[in-house]
């Protein structure tokens, strides 16, 4: 089985993200609205995505996961940084190169209800991909679309149906078919199952795992649900307020989290296993606004381990153990629990 060991992963980076930043400017609340505020949605993020892996990305709402996903596909223009795809910086690509790139990098959106145009049939929605990129026409196009529908487990006779005639899970399948139309190498799946019911979620997760295997995709899988991310990912990255705070191989991150945020997060996920005894550590306070992030380490206002140093110095993402990256001045040792570290 694929995930029982990771020997099958060749550690060739397919995508390399270097010091990526995306800042949004918004009007401030002042009387004359002249005051401008900057939201550092993605703030100096660097990491690699290996060929053939599923990299899970987790973090609370608003921490910048979707923005990161959109920017590394250049669906939005980053403020600064580099994104290398097969070693080439795609941020310097011109229009034509960018269009070719779309064949290779795709996105599946979170919302199966809002992401499909209600006035188009399923055939048209998927067919649009071929039209934009001029790769298939007429009968050949129709044939390809029907194959895609079959690939994602939809009846090809639904070719002429409209989105509202489908359930949420079926619509998400259409979204997946659309993303796969041009046979991409790399797909960002932005919370593809969050809007779906539990029993339908597992249908879509199974589909994604199977397609990934069959088509040899590389996947950036963004999600809230840690159980889902754990199930599907080879490695997991944890974001907090625009920064990557921890990144490691999945079992390692779940068994030996080193960042206090990750460690606390893992104690608080509601788990359906009644036998799992856990000592919950409930983080105090609210997630700070990204328009006014704390100085130093952005997690320090809620961190049980924070010291003065944390207020002054931004911790860098460092490889503390082989393949285990953490940005914290006081990372947990292997086997040390957050509770132990607090005392």
């Amino acid at each position: 089985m694929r995930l029982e060991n990771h020997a099958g992963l060749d550690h060739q980076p397919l995508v390399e993200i270097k010091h990526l930043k995306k800042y949004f400017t918004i009007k401030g609340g002042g009387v004359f609205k002249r005051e401008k505020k900057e939201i550092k949605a993605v703030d100096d993020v660097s990491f690699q995505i290996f060929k053939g892996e599923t990299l899970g990305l987790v973090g609370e709402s608003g921490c910048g996961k979707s923005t990161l996903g959109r920017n590394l596909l250049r669906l939005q223009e980053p403020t600064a940084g580099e994104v290398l795809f097969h070693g080439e910086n795609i941020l310097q690509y011109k229009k034509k190169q960018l269009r070719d790139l779309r064949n290779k990098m795709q996105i599946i959106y979170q919302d199966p209800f809002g992401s499909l145009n209600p006035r188009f049939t399923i055939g048209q929605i998927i067919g649009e991909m071929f039209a934009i990129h001029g790769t298939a026409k007429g009968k050949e196009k129709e044939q390809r679309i029907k194959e895609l529908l079959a690939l994602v487990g939809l009846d090809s006779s639904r070719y002429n149906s409209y989105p509202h005639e489908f359930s949420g899970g079926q619509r998400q399948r259409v979204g997946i078919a659309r993303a796969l139309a041009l046979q991409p190498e790399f797909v960002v799946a932005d919370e593809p199952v969050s809007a779906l019911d539990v029993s339908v979620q597992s249908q879509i997760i199974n589909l994604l795992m199977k397609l990934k295997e069959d088509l040899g995709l590389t996947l950036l899988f963004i999600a809230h649900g840690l159980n889902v991310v754990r199930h599907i990912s080879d490695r997991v990255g944890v974001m907090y307020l625009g920064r990557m705070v921890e990144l490691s191989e999945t079992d390692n991150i779940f068994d030996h989290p080193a960042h206090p945020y990750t460690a606390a997060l893992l104690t608080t996920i509601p788990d359906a296993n009644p036998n799992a005894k856990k000592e919950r550590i409930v983080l105090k306070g609210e997630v700070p606004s990204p328009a006014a992030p704390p100085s130093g380490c952005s997690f320090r206002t809620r961190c049980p381990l924070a010291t003065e140093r944390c207020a002054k110095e931004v911790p860098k993402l460092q490889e503390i153990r082989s393949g285990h990256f953490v940005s914290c001045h006081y990372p947990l040792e292997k086997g040390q629990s957050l509770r132990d570290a607090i005392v």
Partner: protein
Amino acid sequence: MEKILEVKELVTGYKGKTGFLKAVDGVSFDIEKGETVCIVGESGSGKSVTSMSIMRLVDYENGKILSGSIRFEQEELTDKSSDEMRHIRGSKISMIFQEPLTALNPVFTVGKQITEAILLHQSITKKKAMERAEELLRLVGLSDPKTRLKQFPHELSGGMRQRVMIAIALASNPELLIADEPTTALDVTIEAQILELLRTIREQRNMSIMLITHDIGVAAEMAHRIIIMYAGKIVEIGKTNDILQRPYHPYSKGLMESVPKMDGQRGVPLQSIDGTIPSLHEMPSGCRFSPRCPLATDKCRGEAPQLERKGDRQVACWHVDKLLQQEDKTQVKEGI
């Protein structure tokens, strides 16, 4: 144990083109004093309609309680006038809604909204009510409650607003708190804060909680008992650990198995239930789960099973005995 709420054969419908569409169809359960009961089920299974029926709020939305009984502290709620109901709501029964922003009035300060809830049921001075409001905000764990009282809902984060909603719900010292997905819109770490808050308050006040969720993990952590709903009907009721360890109904079983476990094997295909929940106007005949059920027979498709006792449990399935026997057999084979 003293029963605080008893719902019997509740049927609630919404006006459709050809008559009432039954969103809740013959639901019976009870809640004891100090108990937390979780209602779990997929979107559209009738969880919210059940709670809105207990609050008698369905009438305001084109809906109607068509039959059945809802007894709260031995009194029949379905007979109450809307004035009587208004008094019971917000004094003895309070409700927290899923979306805290829409449930709060955007043009009034947090302080005004809480004191209003207090003054509705207690004849005390405005100043005293304000003090009490401050106390409530402190109780729900908001820092700097004096400042918060002067703020408007949009100035607070989602987690803070949900705390304000809980403060309002607690203003009248309710006996029963109905919480409809109170954490679905919130982040994991904030969700953990709110759940812990609800647990503490329940213990301190010996309050009963009816918690609606579609997250089995949340139910596992909060509930004494779990009620599983499917397509407007209850399919199973049981003690939390019993249901989690060995769900009886094929739907409950499918539901539990489709959730990836934190200690489960990674990367293997998850169990899933084929198909989707039926919509109100195309309810299958017989057992409503039959089109998706791996055990369904002609009997299932022809006749609806009733919720029946099985020891501590209540289950609505024709083939539950067969299912349990089969499971026992495979366990013996596997030498467990």
